[in-house]
């Protein structure tokens, strides 16, 4: 029946919505069916009308709204990514994204702390803790912050750039780094990604090798991905084309570029934006082992 999980899910979504309304964010709805997503090497959109796609993220439209002068935006919407299905993945899932003009990724990290504390306090009232794999995580305890390179050296005994060269990045991240995060009692911010792993993020001004990107983990479960936005249209076009070259080499379909977005980038003020998986947030609130437990129906049940 999933009754409890569905009430919990509704409560999490209401809490998230209240959180951003109270802080003066404008809630927006942008089209789900679009001519082009931001091309990424490892994200495959679902194609619908002859040349249109379901959104893999609302980022393209939300950043255009920032360029139009809006300062604080949020959206809760469905996103689609082809052939992604596992205990933590659904091809169709629910994403929260929020954006701030005039801020960088550090402000988003503070937002994350307050948001997770609010969800834990409102949705698990008798014990403000998240649960994953039977362990509990306290969002009110001091959060841990470490760079990707620090994490690879400390938990993987290896250099992240060497892993990238050898094609071992994903393997080490999922087999050594993420499991190590499960031992922390509070959420973890993994930050400052190698520049090649940040398609739409700004390079850190004082270290050209890394980008101002971070991921939020609770109990080793990846919950959110945020960054300071890249606002240089030429650099952005180059990165999209590089992603398409990599896709082509891997035998993947080359994707059209979102031209109106690229044209709008010159009007984008310094900004920061983040995407957080609502289904996974509900999993942590419910202590669910699989994403299947927190959605009304899985694709297999349809």
């Amino acid at each position, binding site marked *: 029946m999933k009754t409890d999980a569905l009430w919990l899910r509704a409560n999490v979504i209401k809490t998230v919505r209240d959180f951003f309304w109270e802080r003066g964010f404008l809630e927006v709805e942008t089209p789900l069916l679009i001519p082009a997503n931001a091309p990424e090497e490892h994200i495959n959109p679902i194609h619908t009308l002859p040349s249109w796609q379901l959104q893999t993220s609302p980022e393209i439209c939300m950043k255009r709204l920032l360029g139009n002068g809006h300062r604080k935006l949020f959206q809760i919407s469905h996103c689609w990514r082809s052939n992604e299905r596992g205990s933590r993945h659904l091809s169709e899932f629910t994403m929260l994204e929020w954006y701030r003009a005039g801020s960088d990724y550090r402000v988003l990290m503070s937002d994350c702390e307050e948001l997770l504390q609010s969800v834990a306090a409102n949705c698990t009232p008798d014990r403000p803790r998240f649960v994953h794999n039977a362990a509990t995580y306290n969002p009110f305890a001091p959060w841990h912050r470490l760079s990707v390179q620090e994490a690879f050296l400390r938990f993987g005994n290896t250099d992240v750039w060497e892993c990238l060269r050898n094609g071992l990045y994903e393997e080490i991240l*999922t087999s050594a780094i993420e499991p190590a995060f499960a031992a922390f009692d509070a959420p973890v911010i993994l930050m400052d990604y190698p520049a090649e792993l940040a398609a739409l993020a700004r390079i850190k001004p004082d270290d050209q090798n890394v980008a101002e990107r971070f991921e939020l983990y609770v109990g080793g479960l990846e919950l959110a991905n945020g960054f300071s936005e890249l606002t240089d249209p030429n650099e952005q076009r180059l990165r999209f084309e590089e992603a398409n070259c990599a896709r082509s080499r891997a035998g993947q379909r080359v994707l059209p570029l979102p031209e109106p977005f690229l044209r709008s980038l010159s009007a984008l003020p310094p900004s920061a934006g983040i995407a957080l998986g609502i289904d996974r947030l509900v999993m942590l609130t419910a202590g669910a082992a699989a994403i299947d437990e927190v959605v009304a129906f899985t694709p297999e049940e349809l």
Partner: protein
Amino acid sequence: MYTVADLKKGLKIILDGDPYLVVAFDFVKPGKGQALYRTKMRNMINGTLLDRTYRSGESFEPASLEERSMEYLYKEGEHYTFMDQQTFEQVVMEEETLGDAKNYLLENLKVEVMLFGEKAIGISLPNFVNLRVTETEQWAKGDTSGNDSKPATVETGYVLRVPPFIEENELIVIDTRTGEYSTRVKG
């Protein structure tokens, strides 16, 4: 051919020439990174478990397995011979492959033989088999030692615990799933 996107629990594939059953599967994809497909597979011939991680683009050959009704004929050394009663085709299996199933094999027993190509890789037995006791000690009336079972050997050579009242030459029913005595055959 299967691709990694087809992988799921219950799928049977060929790896290094052996048939494997996918017993656990998960899709992992760290933030914007390449997808990994983590699997746990059981070798269908020797039962060993194998952990393997795949990336998109890899492919697998399906393992086609066939179950056929056959009759157990005879044993020669460590080799056990079975025959399909319709086609009179015979297959031979090693004692090691049979495992505990050899304890219940009496001539003309009907079993299901699992075939991987031409090769027999396992059998499924009926849940219950009747076997005659060939050797067991007489139960001494008035025995107060408190033992509620005693060892008995059946016609296949298998030794198990039976209740004290079972005598030599009696036919008993054995549960092949547990290897334990179930009841005696009356009459």
